[in-house]
């Protein structure tokens, strides 16, 4: 009974002397895992790790399958979040001081310029990698077999990524910000074109009201900046975090990443994996388990392919760590050399010429050039709707996990790519060379142009093209590939046109060096 008689002080003393170990022990409960069992345990027990499965399919670890796109996008977002918090410390969201505080971040804050560059470039890179990720998911038919909902969430995430970037673009309150804000406000007000045509603007000015709501007034000013700031640092990040959680949750619930039904191991796979160490093996390769009995769909282990899985610790984690460092290193290296743009203080009296939205919206701006409503809202909505509907209109799940589905898929991709490139460049070239209806018949009603302009014609063509593909190949998957390929090509070409080929007054130039000197 000595122990019980030990005085409280002695106990306290003992505790005090062991506080280092016990404190550490409570953080690192299990220490470095040494056996498969402990490797498994750590995946279960760690909050951050448990979103991943204990065992990971080799297919998931193959860089050639995922290309790491989703992960890179995730890490870019994390980098942007962290650097964003850093910037938030110094940034002052008022039109008097926003510009100056950004200048101060550039000039005075130690490492401020680098941090701003990192924030800017990681944010913009996120758009690219989210799109790449989507491309990968699409071409490997990974939107099927219960993943339809996650595809929709992905599209929401894409839109959120765009919005986060856009709102961030407006914060420095320089000429770029201001005129991008004006353009975006005008795109928001695009329904005005329709209501004008219908002659109901007086009673039902949906475009004007949306614009006013967005700007908090009729012209961009301090209210608009506050709103944009609120969106950028709170609403959109919160939304993206929550929805991203759902995204990951769904990946887990839908049975991890897709893989082909017939998976063959290759010799090269050993480059990416550490084979299971057999000591204390709790997952014999011949057994399958349903880890969560209520879960629908297939968990990775519940499959006949269990022999092709390896433990997530260390295989998956090393892969993730490597991608993270790669992303970070690439962003920092890029930011080291390339500075984020910052132009003159916003000046409502002097429009930028050309006033351009951020580059990722220049495809839209190109379309807006034809019709404000169709380009700004109609066609993007149609494109998003088309993308969202893909998993529901194409239900051929047998191709899941295979790049381009099969040989025919690759052919369709290539043909669609060529047709898309040639067709769209032709359409643009025609429009640039010969103008459109307004140039030919100055008095033509606007409704005709809204309905029939290069953008809508192209949209119609894309629809017909994918329907024709379905008809010829007898496969909805091929139609989907045709549709998606052309969507991708269109986005790239339109963005390139808007970014590089459009100069002052939205005139055509081969390169910026040809712009008239201002």
């Amino acid at each position, binding site marked *: 009974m000595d122990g019980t008689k030990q005085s409280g002080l002695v106990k306290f003393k003992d505790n005090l002397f062991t506080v280092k170990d016990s404190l550490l022990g409570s953080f690192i409960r299990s220490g470095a895992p040494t056996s498969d069992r402990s490797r498994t345990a750590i995946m279960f027990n760690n909050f951050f790790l448990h979103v991943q499965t204990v065992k990971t399919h080799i297919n998931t670890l193959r860089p050639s399958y995922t290309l790491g796109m989703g992960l890179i996008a995730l890490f870019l977002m994390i980098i942007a979040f962290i650097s964003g918090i850093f910037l938030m410390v110094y940034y002052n969201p008022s039109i008097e001081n926003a510009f100056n505080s950004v200048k101060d971040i550039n000039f005075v804050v130690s490492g401020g310029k680098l941090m701003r560059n990192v924030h800017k470039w990681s944010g913009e890179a996120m758009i690219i990698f989210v799109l790449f990720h989507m491309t990968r998911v699409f071409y490997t038919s990974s939107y099927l077999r219960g993943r339809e909902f996650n595809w929709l969430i992905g599209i929401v995430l894409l839109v959120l990524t765009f919005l986060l970037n856009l709102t961030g673009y407006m914060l420095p309150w320089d000429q770029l910000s201001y005129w991008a804000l004006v353009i975006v406000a005008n795109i928001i007000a695009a329904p005005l074109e329709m209501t004008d045509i219908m002659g109901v603007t007086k009673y039902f000015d949906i475009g004007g009201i949306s614009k006013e709501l967005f700007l908090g007034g009729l012209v961009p000013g301090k209210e608009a900046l506050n709103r944009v700031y609120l969106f950028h640092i709170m609403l959109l990040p919160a939304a993206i975090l929550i929805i991203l959680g759902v995204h990951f949750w769904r990946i887990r619930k839908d049975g991890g990443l897709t893989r082909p039904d017939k998976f063959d191991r290759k010799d090269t796979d050993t480059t990416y994996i550490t084979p299971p160490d057999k000591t204390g093996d709790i997952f014999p390769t011949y057994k399958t388990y349903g880890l969560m009995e209520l879960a629908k769909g297939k968990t990775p282990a519940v499959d006949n392919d269990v022999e092709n899985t390896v433990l997530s610790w260390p295989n998956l984690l090393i892969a993730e760590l490597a991608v993270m460092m790669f992303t*970070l290193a690439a962003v920092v290296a890029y930011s080291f050399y390339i500075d984020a743009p910052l132009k003159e203080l916003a000046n409502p009296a002097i429009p930028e010429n050309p006033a351009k939205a951020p580059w990722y919206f220049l495809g839209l701006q190109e379309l807006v050039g034809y019709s404000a409503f169709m380009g700004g809202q109609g066609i993007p909505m149609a494109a998003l709707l088309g993308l969202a509907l893909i998993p529901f209109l194409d239900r051929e799940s047998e191709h899941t996990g295979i790049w381009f589905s099969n040989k025919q898929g690759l052919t369709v991709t290539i043909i669609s790519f060529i047709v898309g490139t040639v067709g769209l460049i032709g359409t643009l070239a025609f429009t640039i060379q010969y103008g459109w209806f307004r140039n030919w018949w100055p008095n033509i009603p606007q409704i005709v142009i809204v309905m029939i302009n290069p953008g809508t014609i192209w949209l119609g063509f894309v629809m017909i093209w994918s329907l024709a593909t379905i008809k010829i190949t007898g496969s909805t998957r091929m139609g989907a590939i045709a549709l998606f390929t052309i969507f991708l090509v269109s986005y790239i070409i339109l963005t390139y046109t808007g970014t590089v080929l459009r100069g002052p007054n939205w005139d055509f130039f081969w390169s910026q060096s040809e712009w008239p000197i201002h």
Partner: protein
Amino acid sequence: MHSRFYLSLLLISSLVLMMFIGMGVYREMTSEWKTYQTEYKNMLVRNAEDDAARKRAEKLEIGLRQNYVASLNKSDRCMSCHIGVENPYMAKADQPFTLHSGDYIENHPVDKFGCTICHYGQGRATNKKEAHGKGHTHWDYPIIPTKYIQSACAKCHDYKMLQEEGAELVVKGEKLFREKGCRGCHKLNGVGGDLGKALDGIGSKPRAYYAMKHVVGEHTAYNWIKQHFDDPRAIVPTSEMRVFMEEDESDLLTTYIFSIREEEMPSKYRFLKNIVTPPRDGESLYKMFCVACHGSGKISVYDEIFDRTIPAITNPPFLRSADNKTIKNIVMEGRGGTQMTSWKTTASGLKEEDVDKIVEYVASSRTYERPEPFNYLEFQTNIDSGMRLYNNRCSYCHGKEGKGGNRQLGINLKNSTVQQVLDPEFLALTIRDGREGTPMPSFGGDGLGLSDQNIADVVAYVKTFGKKK
């Protein structure tokens, strides 16, 4: 370990990251201003006269220096590099350490005024390129060349003081601005002509306000204004600006132009004791509003810029036939279709009494009494005969339709002034007596032999121009 691919990716990426972080730190450590400050410190230590001074020099802290002037809303970090600007020992040092020239710094201590309030440039920037705002630095107000620096003085000081205390360039510029007749075309504070752009706040206009296409050298507002003064059409090919500079006049005017600013200085900075209102007598007003086109007004000149003849308005023959009322009418109404705009108060902001003064001044060289009257109304006119005579005798200079201009020497006869404001008697007198000092010959009497009846016919015909559309 077998996951070679990911491990090597991890390794390489980590190394690259470390390298760039290291480079970033190095870049911070060796920033431009730090290098300068170290150099400055070494200089002080090296040149210290005694130990105390050396100790003080050694204690000099290396760090960003900033002048925050709240009432001017300026944060100037110029002294991070120009660290010796208030140190009298630095009088002979090279830039960026040199002492500020002159004695301005005594009355304008840096901590109360900052730097950019006079010199412009980007006060917040901490590297030379961006601080001076040169090249593609996206800064609206690059550092002002020293020859125009006096434009900043006029922000706070009155011209009398500027004249007496060493800022005579901007004073001269202001005088030139009045005497070159700039306001004949440009409005300032609501008073002036309509042909050119209003000049209010012109000095604060950002770089993007100017079309820099034809500017030689660096594309700054200073160069634009200066080169535009030197040769307006080299900068704006379609410009109708009639300004001809001698020697340094364009520099003086440029200096003045940059003192016309939008922003107003806080009252405690302003030092306006002796505000001398510029003279507003007839001669000054004539120079301010008329001289750019009419010059002395003694001779008429065919102007290639306007592509028409600018009439001589102070030569005696004109004044002989035009009374003050007629002249005032012309001034107030302007001459439609020509560069002569209306000078009514509503159009030009000029008060009617000022117009009266100008008219008086113009008429001051009237030497003769009214000429022998023509009595136009007593003639029975024949428009057909007038037309024949006009086509034969007048159309070579005034054009078949009386429009003048376009390489025709004659003035525009079709405009509303000639048609409505001037009475036929005046026209008849002009034709009969001609205008000495101008190419308009005398057609009556011994001259080119038109009888009074002929002249009356021509006048009648000329008066029909207004009716034709």
